[in-house]
């Protein structure tokens, strides 16, 4: 006897979009709306370069947000990212200042982030301590390393660094920076890893239900350690991009960045409890934050406090619409 009732599932006939994609699509649509508002209000907004600038200016944020997406997808959180970014930039700047070869510096800089991430992942997994507290300690630690290296900002004058930083890749009249391209590359790689590798799928599995994932024989510990390592690596790349971007290492740079990053990930539709979300969403989240900021700069009439209030307000309007669209299609 076959059970026909199971097949009968009304309400999905013409509307081919799977419900779980709706939040991301809604976010994309809203982003477009915001962009059009900008274009209609300010003429210069329609320059393609404005779009490119978004990537140039937020490349490091994007990369770090990608790493954070991995962590949040497992239901964890990584508060150390901002400090690790700063630490990477500081270490690079000070090593370059000491005359080390840029290639060596690059390797060292790209190693310390993942090592710290790996260590935090191990503590989280083996000692079963909440990620929040472990990564908060990591945040203090990395920031401490920054001020310990120097309390003043260290300029980078190395040839490789400056030429990479100032190299413009022209696309027609407009240009992007190397950093922006790297960021886009990281996004693409990360999206592929999440969608097409076992590691990526295990990340979702752990976020869905860690206990179940364990019982299903998935490598929970390894995956958990891996995501913090990945986040550390992304922060390190972000730190390098930031050092390209500012050509210096400053002890107080990227303070509070972790909140921006978490916000971007969550706005992009990833659930903070884990198990659901996409890299593409994170990209959108970063774009939303930066469009909000661009709108405010273009406006140029808001004073300091109104700036904050308006950022909050725009964020609210955005989240509200996103949520309403989500509910409607449910």
């Amino acid at each position: 006897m076959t059970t026909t009732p199971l097949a009968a599932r009304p309400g999905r006939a013409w509307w081919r979009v799977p419900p779980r994609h709706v939040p991301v699509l809604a976010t994309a649509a809203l982003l477009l709306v915001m962009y059009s508002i900008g274009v209609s209000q300010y003429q210069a907004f329609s320059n393609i370069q404005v779009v490119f600038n978004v990537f140039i200016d937020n490349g490091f944020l994007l990369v770090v947000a990608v790493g954070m997406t991995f962590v949040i997808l497992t239901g964890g959180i990584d508060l150390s990212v901002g400090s690790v970014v700063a630490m990477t930039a500081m270490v690079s700047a000070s090593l370059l200042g000491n005359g080390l070869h840029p290639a060596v510096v690059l390797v060292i800089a790209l190693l310390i982030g993942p090592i710290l991430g790996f260590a935090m992942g191990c503590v989280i997994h083996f000692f079963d301590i909440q990620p929040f507290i472990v990564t908060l300690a990591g945040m203090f630690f990395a920031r401490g390393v920054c001020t310990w290296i120097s309390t003043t900002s260290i300029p980078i004058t190395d040839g490789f660094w400056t030429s990479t930083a100032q190299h413009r890749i022209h696309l027609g009249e407009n240009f992007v920076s190397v950093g922006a391209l790297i960021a886009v590359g990281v996004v693409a790689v990360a999206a592929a890893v999440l969608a097409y590798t076992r590691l990526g799928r295990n990340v979702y599995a752990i976020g869905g239900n860690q206990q179940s994932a364990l019982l299903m024989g998935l490598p929970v510990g390894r995956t958990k350690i891996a995501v913090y390592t990945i986040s550390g690596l992304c922060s390190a790349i972000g730190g390098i991009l930031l050092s390209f971007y500012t050509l210096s290492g400053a002890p107080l740079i990227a303070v509070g960045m972790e909140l921006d990053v978490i916000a971007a990930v969550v706005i992009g539709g990833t659930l903070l409890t884990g198990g659901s979300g996409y890299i593409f969403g994170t990209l959108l989240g970063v774009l939303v934050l930066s469009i909000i900021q661009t709108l405010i700069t273009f406006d140029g009439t808001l004073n300091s406090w109104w700036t904050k209030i308006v950022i909050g307000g725009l964020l609210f309007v955005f989240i509200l619409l996103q949520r309403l669209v989500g509910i409607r299609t449910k």
Partner: protein
Amino acid sequence: MSTVRARAAGITGHRLFWPLVVLVLLLVANAVYRPSFLSVELKNGHLYGSLIDIVRLSAPLILVALGMSLVIATGGIDLSVGAVAAVAGAVACLYISEQPDQNSVGVVLTAVALGFGVALLLGAWNGILVAGIGIQPIIATLILMVAGRGLAQLIAEGQIITINSGPYKVIGVGHVLTLPFAIVIALAVTVLVAVLTRRTALGMIIESVGGNAEASRLAGIRSRRITFLVYVVSAACAAIAGFMMTANVSSADGNAVGLWVELDAILAVVIGGTALAGGRFYLGGTVVGALLIQTLTTSVYAMNIDPQTSLLFKAVVVIVVCLIQAPAFRARFRRRRSVPVTPVEPVGTEKEQVPA
């Protein structure tokens, strides 16, 4: 003998044992560095000393963390507490600064009521976003975290409002019965929250919502209402903390009041043993966590640790606390203790086996 052992196991197994050990160690380290650290004297009828400072300075953090405990227990998080504290403080100070007689108790009471009212509104706003519209708590409260700071600055137009009001100042630096008034307030609010949650069913209901919201709904709990409520309570606690912080220096600085207090508060809650995922919460643990954090800050000043390395010092202490607090960590450094076992009824000795 065995009862002594059992009792010792009971004590070391207690959730608060290890954070308290670290707290004591920090105090001892301070005392070694400077023996007078532990001394408490009576000056002009006021208790005076570093220990008193620590408790007094942690009062605002305790308040904020209490509210945060409840929010976290429901599985949420409130990033806006710092901003709410700033707004409440700014409103109160603004009102006082505009009155001809700043020393009138009536004026101060009105000011506090105003600030408190505004904070409740902000809390309700958070509550509506989370419980009503269903926005993820971290984002919902992030909105107010950003905008609230702006609001606080807007109120003061970017300036620091300086007031000169005796009664208001009492909130921050006054004394009752030789004790700093701030400590008394923190104690009172702690007791109040404890009574409200533990003498009524509220605590269990909050834990139930945090533990499994859907199951709670099906058990007839109005989960949304509870969620809404905790955000309002959190804002209320933040407001009192805001009054304390502004009264402490008789001025409201929209920028500095409660800056990063949300992180400290969350840290205090987590050190206290409450899980960020929601569920069981421990108010006592939260208070210990807050004291620990303030002790850490004060130690940096008292032991004159170079500001350049003070963050590293903090990182080390936080790591130590969380490591030794983790049962899994201690388990690796300890022989397995025999566990008291409830006797099971004996099963008949028949043990049969059949051939393969």
